[in-house]
């Protein structure tokens, strides 16, 4: 209510003041020299009402709606400062063709006559590409557009990414009528983003925060070598003019970009499939075992990024006895991205196998140009061996389109796997050294066997010797004990038992075997004649004492000495 009241007051005062001023009409054009397609703003100021007649050239294309309102300004007339109130109408437009155009005059017919403005001249020149591709150099403009391009020079077949980018130093309210950039040459273009959508962000240029809009992102595959222009993109922008605080429309025409398409370098490999980018090849067979004469499917898959959609089929070199059956089937799964066309492309070859046994299809190799490394690269894959069962029949060609061929006998084809590498025996086993090495465990067994045997024998011998020494010592000890016995009979019995026991141990026989004849048989190898005689003497003495009845009166100490002597003789 209050707002309506103040508005009425303002209108009343303005009307009174208008009546107090001289009638005038003015035509303002800004700027007066423009490029083709560049926007100009036209403003008509008048402080009188009446029928307005305006002369606009036919070539003028209005690019926005007419805005009208009231305003005031201070002017100096006859040295006096005066406030001037007026109504205004404003609109924008542009010219498509170069030339000099007259706009106006504006004639307003009133009750008191007519009021007329001056006419204005607009010079329209050809596009000078006055917008630099460096945004910091365009900061004299409130709003400007630049074509962003991934590369200025690229190889034939290499993808080029283009995008329109609008920079604005004022508040943008709306973007309309986006007209895409245009590659001025033969090309295959694919939109990556929706052209009706713009993404907004802020960027700092020369220390100033600038609003930017990106739109129309496109991947372009130039088809021919040469230098090409990329015609500018255009769009209409509604923005808040900080000078008037009113929304204004402006047509934005971006810079014109250019790009050079270079031919691929020389030295193209034979396996080149027209691919530019980075690719990998893989292959698989539908069957690994099949019958002779049947058809096997060989699927060759190429994955990668670049110009995948434009690659040719890889060349397959078949060995003798294998033939292609028809053309390959091609399937693909390709997306257009910032890296070009990306995904995979599969070629399915149908191969008739007319040969039995193990059949090795040659490895598949592709060559492509990698723009990153700037050289041709290859990718290779091996194919598993086919086991082809013979059908025992003559090779029958499939009833087909193939021409009948006369075959001359040829060699079996080359092989692709490195087999049968020289596995000759280890040099360790060569020559006489090898023979020595191989016989060494046998010889070692023999030598060690003998060693163990001799050692065992020595041990046995030592043990016997030890036991003999032991038993002699025992015999001497027993003989010493004998001196303490009470009766001669007991002493004699003990002496007899001791001597027989000693001799039995000495000759390793039973005690019962010790006899005079036995002792005699041991001469001269084991006992000497003297020892034998001593033994016989002792035995005879013992017998005479025992059975002669003189034992109680006899002294047997000399017999003990005799026995001791005999034992010591054995020790020696």
């Amino acid at each position: 209510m209050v707002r309506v009241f103040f508005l009425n007051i303002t209108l009343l005062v303005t009307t009174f003041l208008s009546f107090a001023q001289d009638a005038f009409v003015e035509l303002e054009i800004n700027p007066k020299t423009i490029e083709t397609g560049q926007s100009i703003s036209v403003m008509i100021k008048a402080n009188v009402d009446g029928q307005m007649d305006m002369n606009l050239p036919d070539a003028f294309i209005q690019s926005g709606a007419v805005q009208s309102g009231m305003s005031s300004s201070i002017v100096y007339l006859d040295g006096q400062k005066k406030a001037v109130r007026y109504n205004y109408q404003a609109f924008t437009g542009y010219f498509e063709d170069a030339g000099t155009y007259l706009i106006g005059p504006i004639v307003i017919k009133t009750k008191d006559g007519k009021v007329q403005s001056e006419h204005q001249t607009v010079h329209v020149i050809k596009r000078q590409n006055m917008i630099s591709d460096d945004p910091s150099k365009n900061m004299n403009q409130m709003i400007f557009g630049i074509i962003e391009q991934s590369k200025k020079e690229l190889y034939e077949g290499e993808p080029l990414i283009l995008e329109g980018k609008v920079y604005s130093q004022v508040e943008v309210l709306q973007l309309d009528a986006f007209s895409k950039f245009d590659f001025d040459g033969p090309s295959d273009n694919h939109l990556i983003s929706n052209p009706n959508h713009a993404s907004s962000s802020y960027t700092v240029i020369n220390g100033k925060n600038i609003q930017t809009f990106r739109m129309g992102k496109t991947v372009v595959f130039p088809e021919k070598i040469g230098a090409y222009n990329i015609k500018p993109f255009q769009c209409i922008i509604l923005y808040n003019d900080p000078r008037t605080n009113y929304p204004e429309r402006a047509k934005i025409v971006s810079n014109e970009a250019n790009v050079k398409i270079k031919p691929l370098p020389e030295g193209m490999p034979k396996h080149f499939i027209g691919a530019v980018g980075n690719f990998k090849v893989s292959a698989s067979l539908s069957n690994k075992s099949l019958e002779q004469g049947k058809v096997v499917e060989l699927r060759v898959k190429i994955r990668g990024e670049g110009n995948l959609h434009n690659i040719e089929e890889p060349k397959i070199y078949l060995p003798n006895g294998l033939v292609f059956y028809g053309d390959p089937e091609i399937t693909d799964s390709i997306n257009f991205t910032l890296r070009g066309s990306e995904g995979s492309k599969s070629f399915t070859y149908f191969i008739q196998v007319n040969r039995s046994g193990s059949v090795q299809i040659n490895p598949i190799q592709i060559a492509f140009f990698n723009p990153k490394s700037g050289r041709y690269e290859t990718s290779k894959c091996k194919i598993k061996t086919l086991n082809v069962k013979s059908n025992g029949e003559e090779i029958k060609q499939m009833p087909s389109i193939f021409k009948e061929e006369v075959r001359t006998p040829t060699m079996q084809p080359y092989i692709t796997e490195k087999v049968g590498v020289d596995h000759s025996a280890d040099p360790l086993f060569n020559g006489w050294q090898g023979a020595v090495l191989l016989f060494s465990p046998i010889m070692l067994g023999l030598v060690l066997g003998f060693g163990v045997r001799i050692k065992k024998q020595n041990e046995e011998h030592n043990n016997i010797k030890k036991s003999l020494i032991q038993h002699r010592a025992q015999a001497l000890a027993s003989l010493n004990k004998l001196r303490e016995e009470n009766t001669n009979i007991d002493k004699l019995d003990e002496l007899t038992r001791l001597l027989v026991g000693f001799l039995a141990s000495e000759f390793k026989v039973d005690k019962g075997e010790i006899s005079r004849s036995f002792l005699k048989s041991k001469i001269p190898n084991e006992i000497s004649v003297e020892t034998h005689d001593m033994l016989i003497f002792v035995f005879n003495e013992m017998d005479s004492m025992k059975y002669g009845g003189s034992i109680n009166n006899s002294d047997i100490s000399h017999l003990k000495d005799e026995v001791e002597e005999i034992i010591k003789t054995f020790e020696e």
Partner: protein
Amino acid sequence: MRAVYLLLILLFSFSLQGKTKDLLFEKGLDEIMQEEYEEAQAVFLQDAKLQPSFSSYYNLGVASGSLEEWSKAKWAFESSLKYRPLSGDAQFNAKFATQKIGENKVWKHPYPWLERVIIGFGATTWTIFVCISSLFLGFLIFNIVSKRKSNTIKWCLRLIVPSILLFVISFYGIYSINEHYNKERYAILKNQKTKFYISPNGVQIKEDIDPAIRLELMKYFKDSTWIQVRSQGKNYLWIESENLYTY
């Protein structure tokens, strides 16, 4: 720790060496696939020298045959049989090359069947057999000689005869394989204009030798610059080694 690093470096360098050799074979394959037979021939020849294998000799034969160099092809195919004597394709191609040199020539396998069987088993098999049998035989002999328990000796005596048999056979296998790989036995004339001599640098003699025939290599002379061969007519001839393909 230093030793471990050293071992790793050694292993790495060995693996790189193997890779380089394989790369040579792959390069040869590329050339032969592109029908660049002269380049393929050179690469496979180099590969066969660095790391002799059935595949390198065989493909060398295919490349040589494609260039109509049939003597070289025959030599390469028969050389490939040295590594895989049972390969049907190599035998077929050797026969094919022989018939290209001289029509209606009968081709015979250069290696007798027993040798083929022995090579068929492979050097590794024979090495394992000979090592195991030698160790086992040593063990048996040790037991017998050292007079172990009577029961053990009884078993040792039972097993010693088969062990000796196995040792002898596998030892022969190793010996044959060493002879097979390390000794050149045959020669093929490079061309029909080859000159024959009674002795090295001696008197030249006239001898009609069928170039399709493989000659038996008898001995070498003077740093292998001269080779004595036995012709099919049992004549002993000296030939300059540069005029012969030997294997």
